[in-house]
C-alpha cells in the first residue's frame, strides 16, 4: 500500500497533498480505498456535512461561493466536494465548478475538490462518502457537497449529508414538474436562487404548496437569493447553520455505519473472489449448491 493510507492528513502543505492523494486513491477504488476509509473511521465523527443539490444551471456553485465567507466565519475551515458528470462514452469529464467560485476566499482554510461521477448514479460519485469520512478524520469541520445536478432525483446526498439545501430558480415548476415530488422530499431547506428572474412569486407559491403536502409537521423553509449579488445569503446561512446545529447525530452515525457495512461487504467479496480462485473451490462434478456452500464455509472456518 502506498503512503496514502498512512499519511498525515493534518495541517500544513505536505499534509494537504497527502489528503488530496488519499482522495485520489479512494476514487481509484480497490483495497487501498477500503483501507483509507477504515483508517478514517478510527476517528470519531465530528464534521457537519451540507448537501447542495438542484437542477443544472440553478446556480449551486455560485450559491456555495456566496455562502463560503459565512461558513468560514462559523466553522473556521471548509471543504467542498463538487461533483460533475463523466461522459458515458469516453469516461472523460469537464469539471468547471471552480470557475464559478470566488478565488479570493481560497486559502489554506478552503479545500476544494472536483469529482467526476465516473458512472455512479444518484448525483454524487462512488467515492464521495469515503472522501467525506476522510475529510472528517483530517479535521475539516464542514464538508459541502455539490451534487451533479442532472435534474433528476439525487437521493444519495440525503444519505450522506446532515442537511440538504435544494436550489431552484423562478420558473422551476415549468421545467421540473416531473421531479417536483422527488425534489421536494429531498431538502431541509429550499432556495429560489436568481430571484431577480421573472416568475419568482409564482415559483414560491408553487413550491410552498408542494412542501405543505409533505408529511413533516413543519414544512422546510423557502429562501430567495441572488447569489451573484449576495442577496439573501446571510439569512440563508443563518438558517442553514441552525439546521446543521440541530441535525441529529444519527446522520453522522449512518454515514459511518454505511462505511463499515460497505467495508464488510467489500471484504467479504474480496474473500469470495479469493475462494473462487483457490483450490478449495474445486467442486466435484455432481456437486449441488449446498455442497458448494459447504466448501465456502469450510474455507472461511479454516481462515480463522
Amino acid at each position: 500500500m502506498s503512503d496514502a493510507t498512512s499519511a498525515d492528513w493534518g495541517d500544513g502543505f505536505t499534509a494537504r497533498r497527502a489528503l488530496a492523494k488519499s482522495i485520489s486513491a479512494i476514487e481509484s477504488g480497490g483495497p487501498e480505498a477500503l483501507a483509507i476509509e477504515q483508517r478514517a473511521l478510527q476517528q470519531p465523527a465530528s464534521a457537519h456535512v451540507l448537501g447542495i443539490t438542484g437542477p443544472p444551471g440553478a446556480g449551486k456553485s455560485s450559491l456555495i461561493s456566496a455562502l463560503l465567507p459565512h461558513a468560514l466565519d462559523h466553522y473556521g475551515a471548509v471543504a467542498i466536494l463538487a461533483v460533475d458528470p463523466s461522459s458515458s462514452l469516453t469516461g472523460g469529464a469537464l469539471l468547471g465548478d471552480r470557475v464559478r467560485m470566488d478565488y479570493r476566499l481560497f486559502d489554506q482554510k478552503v479545500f476544494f475538490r472536483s469529482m467526476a461521477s465516473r458512472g455512479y448514479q444518484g448525483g454524487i460519485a462512488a467515492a464521495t462518502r469515503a472522501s467525506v469520512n476522510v475529510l472528517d478524520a483530517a479535521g475539516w469541520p464542514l464538508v459541502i457537497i455539490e451534487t451533479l445536478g442532472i435534474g433528476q432525483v439525487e437521493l444519495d446526498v440525503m444519505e450522506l449529508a446532515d442537511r440538504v439545501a435544494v436550489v431552484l430558480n423562478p420558473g422551476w415548476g415549468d421545467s421540473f414538474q416531473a421531479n417536483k415530488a422527488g425534489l421536494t422530499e429531498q431538502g431541509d431547506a429550499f432556495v429560489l436562487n436568481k430571484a431577480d428572474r421573472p416568475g419568482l412569486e409564482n415559483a414560491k407559491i408553487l413550491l410552498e404548496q408542494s412542501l405543505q403536502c409533505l408529511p413533516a409537521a413543519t414544512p422546510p423553509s423557502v429562501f430567495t437569493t441572488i447569489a451573484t449579488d449576495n442577496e439573501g445569503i446571510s439569512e440563508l446561512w443563518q438558517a442553514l447553520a441552525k439546521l446543521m446545529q440541530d441535525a441529529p447525530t444519527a446522520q453522522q452515525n449512518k454515514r459511518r455505519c454505511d462505511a463499515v457495512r460497505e467495508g464488510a461487504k467489500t471484504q467479504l467479496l474480496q474473500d469470495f473472489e479469493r475462494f473462487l480462485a483457490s483450490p478449495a473451490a474445486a467442486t466435484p462434478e455432481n456437486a449441488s449448491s449446498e455442497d458448494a456452500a459447504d466448501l465456502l464455509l469450510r474455507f472461511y472456518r479454516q481462515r480463522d
Partner: protein
Amino acid sequence: MKPKRILMAKTGLDGHWRGPTIVARALRDAGFEVIMIGMATTAEIVAAAIDEDVDLVGLNIGGHIDVALRAVDAVQAAAPDMPIFAGGTIPPHACKQLEAKGLEVFPPGSMLTDIVDSANRLTGLSTAP
C-alpha cells in the same frame, strides 16, 4: 482504468477562451477529467493542482513569459513529480524558455491530436515518443 486528471489554467488576465476550450474538449473526449480554473494566479494554480491531485497541469499562456515561468517554477517546487504542458500565443523565444524547464509547448497551429498524445504520454498512459 482510472481516468487521469488534468488541470487547465490561464496564467494571464486575458479571457480569450477559444483555444483552451477546444483543447479541454479534445482532452475530455480522449477520456481525461479536465478541471478548469480559468484565469488564476500562481498561488491559485498551485493550490488547485495540489487539492485536485492532478496528473498533469496545462497552462494557457497569453502574456509575458515571466508570469508563466513563475507559475511553472511554483508548481515544480510544490509537486516536482507533476508534469506541465503549455499552449497559447507564445513566441519562439518563450517556447524555448518553457522547454528548458521541461515543458511540452503547443503554440498556435498545433494539432489537437498532438496535444492529446502529449497528455497521454505525460500522464503515463502511453510510452510512445
